[in-house]
């Protein structure tokens, strides 16, 4: 409903503008040659009324158009988010950005191209009809100019049809190449040629796309002026001295002005289309859920992440205590933890409570990433993620457990974008606080000691020793603190 109201206002806005132009031109021409008794009051009132209609619908269109766009944006985001429930986005982090951009693009469709294009179509028809009924003798030249418009638009479509794909390809290529170069910047000094990221090809493609539209508009302008010249050169005797002759003249003179919004919307239409394709092409892999009830014992046989060239691992049956998976970076520790948690596909067997379990995320296990993700939200909200219905008291207790008492004064403090106000060590301990709050039996901790000072490591190891009396804790680390009580130690480096 709002969509059509937006469209209606846009069309009325544009049509009233064109009518105002045509009508005022006719009015002054008629006034110049008016016979005595010419009723000038009515046209004068009409001119002012048209002006007011144009202003009012202009504001209404902007207002409702944006309201409609925001509603669409909200719906699109929430629908996408609902689809992502217990799924895995099969893409690199960058695609999150493009996904967000694409959704913005699609939500904007009515303002970006549907309304301007419909308005342009309505004005095009109006120009044709007005000429046909009022100055039929000038129809030829106006019709030629108007026919040129869709033809030019088609030509531009044809010329730019692969532009968007090419641009997407160039962007992807640049992103992949530059990411590799940037992550390997420590090697630049060893190279003969200095590394220079270059986006010129992308820019050229972008500018050429805009250029196509601009040249199209110039062509329309030129065609309009040529037709106008021809109209004046081949003016029939009958048309001379008629006030309405000014109507086709004005239409042709300003053809570029009143068609430009619709014409430039072509680019928006094409990027909307490619955004839709990109959103549809996104792949989400569902993470199946596995409810084993409370886990009393856990065992792993010949387990490894699927399609990875890393050694398979055995873990003897454990009912509590700490299992240390030690290994240097790249030895497959993280993927092993994720595999045990059931977050990624694996080869091998997982055995919980003495029975072999299928694939899926273990409900009673908690995987803590090497760099726990902290939301741009309050500290309390970041802790409350761990479980439903966490109270303030529990949150404070969790902070005390993980030696973050200093933060507990201000649970409502905003942590900023990706929690930049916290140190690396604090972020790590918030991850552990979440594990503690989750009340799950199995903890899978990825590099919990990395980047901590020696005293902090000792402290954390002590706390983990205590927690291991109630939990099965599997730690992946290249650091083995001296005071960590380890039940099982598996060295991944030696398995290679």
């Amino acid at each position, binding site marked *: 409903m709002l969509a059509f109201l937006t469209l209606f206002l846009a069309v009325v806005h544009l049509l009233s503008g064109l009518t*105002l*132009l045509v009508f005022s031109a006719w009015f*002054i021409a008629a006034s*110049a*040659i008016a016979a005595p008794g010419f009723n*000038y009051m009515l046209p004068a009132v009409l001119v*002012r009324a048209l002006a007011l209609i*144009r202003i009012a619908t202009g*504001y209404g269109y*902007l207002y409702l158009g*944006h309201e409609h766009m925001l509603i669409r944006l*909200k719906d699109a985001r*929430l629908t996408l*988010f609902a689809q992502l429930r*217990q*799924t895995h*986005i099969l893409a690199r982090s*960058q695609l*999150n*950005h493009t996904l*967000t951009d694409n959704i913005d693009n699609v939500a904007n469709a009515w303002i970006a191209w549907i309304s301007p294009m419909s308005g342009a179509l309505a004005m095009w028809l109006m120009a044709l009809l007005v000429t046909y009924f009022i100055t039929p003798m000038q129809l030829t030249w106006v019709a030629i100019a108007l026919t040129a418009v869709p033809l030019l638009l088609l030509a531009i479509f044809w010329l730019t049809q692969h532009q968007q794909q090419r641009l997407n390809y160039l962007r992807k290529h*640049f992103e992949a190449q*530059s*990411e590799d170069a*940037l992550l*390997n910047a420590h090697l630049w000094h*060893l190279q003969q*040629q200095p*590394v220079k*990221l270059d*986006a010129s090809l992308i*820019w050229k493609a972008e*500018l050429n796309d805009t*250029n196509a539209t*601009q040249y199209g508009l*110039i062509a329309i302008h030129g065609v309009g*002026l040529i037709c*106008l010249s021809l109209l*004046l050169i081949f003016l029939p005797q009958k048309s*001379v001295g008629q006030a309405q*002759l000014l109507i086709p003249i004005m239409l042709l*003179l300003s053809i570029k002005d009143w068609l430009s919004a619709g014409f430039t919307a072509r680019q928006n239409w094409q990027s909307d289309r490619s955004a839709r394709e990109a959103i549809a092409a996104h792949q989400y892999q569902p993470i199946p859920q596995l409810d084993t009830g409370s886990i009393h014992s856990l065992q792993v046989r010949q387990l490894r992440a699927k399609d990875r*060239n890393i050694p398979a691992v055995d873990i003897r049956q454990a009912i509590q205590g700490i299992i240390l998976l030690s290994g240097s*970076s*790249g030895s497959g520790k993280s993927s092993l933890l994720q595999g045990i948690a059931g977050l990624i596909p694996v080869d091998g067997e997982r055995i919980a409570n003495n029975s072999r379990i299928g694939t899926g*995320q273990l409900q009673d296990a*908690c995987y803590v990433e090497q760099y*726990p993700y902290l939301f*741009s*939200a309050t500290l309390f909200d970041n802790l409350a*993620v*761990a*479980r439903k219905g966490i109270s303030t008291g529990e949150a404070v207790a969790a902070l005390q457990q993980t030696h973050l008492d200093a933060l507990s004064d201000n649970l409502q403090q*905003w942590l900023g*974008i*990706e929690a930049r106000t916290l140190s690396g060590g604090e972020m790590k301990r918030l991850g552990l606080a979440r594990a503690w709050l989750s009340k799950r039996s199995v903890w899978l901790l990825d590099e919990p000691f990395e980047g901590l*000072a020696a005293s902090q490591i000792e402290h954390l190891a002590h706390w983990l020793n205590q927690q291991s009396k109630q939990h099965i804790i599997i730690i992946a680390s290249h*650091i083995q603190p001296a005071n960590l009580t380890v039940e099982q130690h598996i060295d991944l*480096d030696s398995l*290679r």
Partner: protein
Amino acid sequence: MKKTNNPVRQRLAQTGSAYRRSLNVLTGLKLLQFLAMIVTFWYLSVIVYQVIEVAQFTTLTALSAFIFSALAWVFLNVIVQRFQLSAELSCRQHLQTQLHGVLTQRQYALTRTQQPRYWQLLWLKQLPALSRYYNQYLPQQYLAGLTPLIILIASFSINWFVGLILLLAMPVVPLFMIVIGKGTASLHQTHFHALHRLGGMFSDRLRGLATINAFHNHATQQSALTEASDQLNDKTMKVVTVAFLNNSVLDFFSTIAVALVAVFVGFSLLGELTIGPAINLQSGLFLLLSVPQVFAEMKHLGKLYHQKAEAEAAIEQFYPVIHQAGDESQALVIDQHLTLRNFRVSSPTLFAPYLSISQGDKIRLSGDSGSGKSVLLHALMGWHPASHKLSGKIAYLTQSPRLIRGTLRENLSLDYMHDDQRLYAVLAQVELTEWLATLPAGLDTEFADHPPASGGQIQRIGLARILLQNAQLVLLDEPTAHLTEQQHRHLSMLIHRTLEDKTLVWASHKELDQGRFNKMWQIENNQITERPC
């Protein structure tokens, strides 16, 4: 450009001074195009007067003058378009060259301070935003200021009353726009935090999806997002309600101006109104065509207004990157023996009264994590501003090794050419012969996201790269930081063995064999002291 105290504007102006010339040319061309349009309007009104009011066929002179000026108008439009395209491209490339300069100098010390996405956005969003501002927004700003004057002069010379109406209306428009702009800004300020937080929430939750799923927190987040979206939309609408008035004010004045002039001209032609010189259809139509042009360029400027905001956001990212602390360091060529006296780094503060490096030295660099070991090494490489830097064949080995996408051969040789025998020999030196045998295509095995190599093996490849370079001096920045204790001992031995004949500076907070070092640089309380060991 106006003098201003606003630092963002100053930075924009400073960066843009290089594009002054093309800005002037572009503005000049656009003005010419505007003049051609006005001339076209004039001759058209002459023709219309002859054809409609005098009711005769038009004269050949008027017709050819009209055709000629119309062609000039279109032709100039093409020239403007062509010039603008090439100006934008060369502006972006010039900005890009500045980035190359900084990155070539600061290298890893600079890139590591931000995620790759940050740098990519500089190229994909920020540079285009700046070039659009310099080549579209600024010329348009000049045009919007100059063109009303042309129309004003033209209308005064025809009818002083019309000129007077315009003269009175013209300042009203910018005045209204300023008032509304201020209103919008203060509303935006009021809701700034809310808009910022709510606006970023969706992409934040997408990034944190794995965490949300791991804790089964999806339902909670979904309802939080719903609530946030509603609030965001509500607040945004409050801001735009006022912001859109800006557009409407312009629309109001341009529409009213057309309507008023049409009515005035019409009534004058009818003889109902006589203010100022008499108006015929020729001057009347010319006025009707020209008057909307008072606001046309300003309207167009309004459409480009977002470019200004984008450029201001972009310059805040671009400027600090380009204007890093100046490079005034003294370059010391590595030789038999060199000394650094009063070596100084300003941020973070580091000072060494005396440091010396002799050929074959094995220098151990120690200090707590965060004490500035990496900064010192980066400064010696010339990547971090300091009083001195070293020049010569130096190699640096990082603590977080990676393999580049490509073959093992490319990973070892980088952009040099080495024959296979040399590569095999070096791989044997770093004890990777056995590992090489497990690779499906040997030296031509391609590595992608998950290369079949552990951290220790990748670090050996790093070592092999250095051996292939024949560097005289090797700076080691905790090369074993991410390895287990056992791997650390093993790799350390290997490094000592393979780099025996090189000069080494080795930063580590892990235990190293003291007997293999002859010097020690200790960082404590921002002070670096050298002593023998």
